[in-house]
């Protein structure tokens, strides 16, 4: 009964989304207030129907209802209950249902938090989100129905969830990533709604800013979680592989970052309008492209659960349809888009332009590297892959250029400025950062790498210029600490975001150049020394888990004769899928991680063990967390809400004038 109820809710959600597409959009074009007013309740109804549908699927997993094909293929009675829940989205159909649920959630959120926006705009935004929702609901229903039953003969026991996905990182990673991906649909919907309405002042930029920023925050967290998961679960200590699936989430992040910044310029100074619109469309298209790459099975990865060409084709059609019609609208309205702000080559606008050019170039680099092999394959010109060296060679200089510009950009004034005015803070920052960057690298790190020295210099450059800027803002205040807290929220958020980037870059530079990985043979009472730490295997024994059997090693770690920690790496064997899995042991720390993984048993009873020393790797994820906290603080700035109220007042005022 429950799966049928879930399916019914899904079908009803499709019907609701059809109404959500038609009624508000027709209402907005005819100026019919009653039709427009249906948008909000329909958005709410769609969300709750999908929530019921998703809830039913979760329940089917929890009840071990193996008559449902999806449950039989991805769950098992011996799976702990929390992994039975996460198994819901550990497969294609379930994760797609989560995708549409997330989209419906964002739609409902827009409906809730748009009370002060013009009615036509709200109706159009929700209508456009309804279109996206309808496309993906049809996709779910027609190619990937999660509620398909195996009747009349169904298995007594299910296959297991892929052991790689039985992990806490997996509980959080997909929902976070989807919140990010799908969140960009809101920015897209605002742009399309503004294009339909033809009212392209900078108001839509202000309205879509908090939505874009929050989507970006979730995406940042989602990507960081994915990297963290790969680090301890999959990658033998690697944290980023330039795997096409990772790139699929990284491309929208890069363009989304560019969009956040160009929206600021568009809102404040009414410049780069067409570019911002293009970015919003492109960012969302890349989100769909990401879904396509991951879900169509064209890629080789843990994420491609199954290969089914119709699904890939369907997604490509959706992407072409949504992107194509948005671009067509942009083309039709191009003449009415006027960026009337003027600015000098030295100004905040130029800084943001540099930011956008660099981020777009970075996205282009990833795009080419990810899609070129696919293109060659489709054209049947051979099979090739583009390795990490390609991405590293291009990405490092772009990131460093971005950091260099980041030191100056936020200090510049809007419209026009003089570098001469900033000479003191810039020179001080340059001297400090070069001294610290090169000094620290030269004296504390061996061997000396130019690229590390340069990276650290730029890290300090960003930090110093931000501090100089803050100092300038609170210099004339009596209570400086109070003044620091009283700085506008959006400014605090910006500073945190930029400092977060500096933290992440520090981690990347350190771990890329100074990590040590050694594969050694270890047996009981044998030890090895890696990076000044002695790893001694004291015990090796077998034990049984709920759905696996395992061999566990106990490794004591000593430094200078004193015990630092005890690590317990495991090799597990999952019965249901007959699949071995490595469970690594980590000793995390702010300045270094120790990492021990059991490789394979060797003939004489010893084990091949990988021992790693990873300096500053936590900083990569710590920086991402700081960046997203910065984003959330920026959204909480009251100016978005106040500004909205003021704007509405003027808009309604205009309408009255127009009517009379």
């Amino acid at each position, binding site marked *: 009964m429950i799966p049928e109820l879930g399916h019914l809710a899904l079908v009803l959600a499709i019907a609701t989304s059809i109404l959500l597409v038609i009624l508000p959009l027709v209402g907005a074009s005819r100026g019919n207030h009653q039709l427009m007013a249906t948008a909000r309740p329909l958005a709410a109804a769609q969300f709750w129907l999908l929530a019921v549908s998703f809830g039913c699927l979760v329940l089917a997993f929890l009840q071990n209802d193996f008559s449902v094909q999806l449950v039989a293929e991805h769950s098992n009675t011996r799976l702990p209950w929390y992994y039975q829940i996460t198994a819901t989205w550990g497969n294609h159909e379930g994760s797609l249902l989560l995708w549409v649920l997330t989209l419906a959630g964002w739609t409902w959120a827009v409906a809730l938090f748009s009370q002060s926006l013009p009615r036509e705009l709200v109706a159009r935004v929700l209508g456009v989100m309804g279109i996206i929702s309808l496309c993906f609901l049809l996709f779910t229903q027609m190619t990937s129905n999660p509620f398909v039953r195996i009747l009349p003969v169904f298995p007594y026991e299910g296959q297991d969830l892929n052991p790689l996905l039985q992990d806490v990182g997996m509980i959080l990673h997909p929902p976070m990533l989807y919140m990010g991906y799908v969140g960009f649909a809101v920015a897209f919907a605002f742009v399309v709604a503004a294009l339909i309405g033809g009212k392209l002042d900078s108001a839509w930029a202000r309205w879509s800013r908090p939505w874009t920023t929050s989507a970006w925050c979730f995406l940042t967290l989602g990507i960081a979680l994915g990297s963290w998961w790969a680090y301890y679960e999959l990658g033998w200590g690697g944290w980023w592989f330039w795997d096409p699936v990772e790139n699929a989430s990284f491309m929208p992040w890069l363009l989304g970052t560019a969009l956040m910044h160009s929206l600021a310029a568009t809102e404040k100074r009414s410049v780069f309008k067409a570019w911002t619109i293009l970015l919003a469309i492109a960012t969302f298209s890349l989100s769909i492209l990401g879904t396509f790459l991951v879900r169509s099975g064209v890629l080789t990865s843990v994420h491609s659960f199954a290969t089914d060409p119709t699904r890939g084709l369907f997604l490509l059609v959706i992407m072409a349809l949504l992107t194509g019609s948005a671009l067509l609208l942009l083309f039709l309205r191009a003449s009415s888009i006027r960026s009337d702000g003027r600015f000098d080559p030295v100004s905040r606008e130029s800084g943001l332009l540099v930011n956008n050019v660099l981020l777009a170039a970075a996205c282009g680099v990833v795009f080419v590297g990810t899609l070129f092999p696919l293109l060659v394959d489709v054209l049947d010109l051979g099979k090739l892959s583009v*390795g990490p060296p390609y991405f590293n060679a291009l990405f490092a200089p772009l990131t460093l250029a971005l950091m260099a510009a980041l030191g100056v950009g936020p200090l510049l004034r809007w419209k026009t400025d003089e570098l001469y005015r900033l000479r003191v803070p810039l020179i001080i920052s340059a001297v400090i950062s070069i001294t610290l960057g090169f000094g620290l690298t030269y004296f504390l790190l061996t061997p000396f790498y130019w690229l590390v020295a340069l990276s650290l210099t730029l890290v300090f450059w960003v930090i110093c210029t931000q501090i100089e800027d803050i100092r300038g803002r609170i210099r004339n205040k009596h209570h400086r600490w109070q003044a620091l807290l009283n700085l506008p929220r959006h400014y605090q958020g910006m500073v945190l975001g930029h400092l977060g980037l500096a933290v992440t870059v520090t981690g990347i530079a350190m771990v890329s150049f100074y990590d040590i990985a050694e594969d050694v043979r270890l047996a009981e009472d044998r030890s090895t020394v890696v990076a000044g730490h002695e790893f001694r295997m004291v015990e090796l024994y077998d034990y049984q888990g709920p759905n696996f059997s395992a061999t566990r090693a106990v490794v004591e770690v000593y430094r200078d004769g004193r015990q630092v920690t005890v690590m317990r790496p495991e090799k597990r064997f999952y019965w249901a899928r007959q699949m071995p899995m490595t469970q690594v042991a980590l000793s995390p720390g702010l300045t270094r991680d120790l990492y021990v993984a059991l490789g394979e048993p060797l003939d004489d009873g010893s084990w091949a063990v990988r021992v790693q020393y990873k300096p500053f790797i936590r900083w990569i994820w710590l920086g991402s967390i700081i960046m997203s906290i910065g984003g959330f603080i920026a959204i909480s700035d009251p100016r978005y809400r106040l500004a909205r109220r003021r704007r509405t007042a003027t808009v309604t005022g205009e309408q009255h004038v127009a009517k009379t």
Partner: protein
Amino acid sequence: MTSARRRRLFMVMSVVFASGVAVALTTYALRQHINLFFAPSQVLAGEAPVDRVIRVGGLVVPGSISRDQETLQVSFEIADNIAAIRVSYSGILPDLFREGQGIVARGTLGPDYHIQAQEVLARHDEEYMPPEVADALKRTSMAHDGY
């Protein structure tokens, strides 16, 4: 020039410059870092370049895995339906590396048709076969039937 024109010129110039640099660098980097894929029979037919990083995929030949007793050196053969070549690797093999399993090795080809692998990739779960390997097997099996 008016300021509006100067601004437009500045913008256009910077975009052209940036995209020019980006395209040049991207093309250069792509040419440097592309890894071509070959099936074992193609390698033996001399189609693969020597001393460049390539990718070779096939099924691990049962009984061909040999491990050094002192170090972590391991060598094994991978085959398509026509030919087999030997791969050596130093380090830990992936969890799902097994006899009869489809794998991809990334490494350089020596003069004696011997691959020195830097990396060995296996599938992430048991339903899955690397697409290149599946494709190579299909092609070679058709060629085989044709004889």
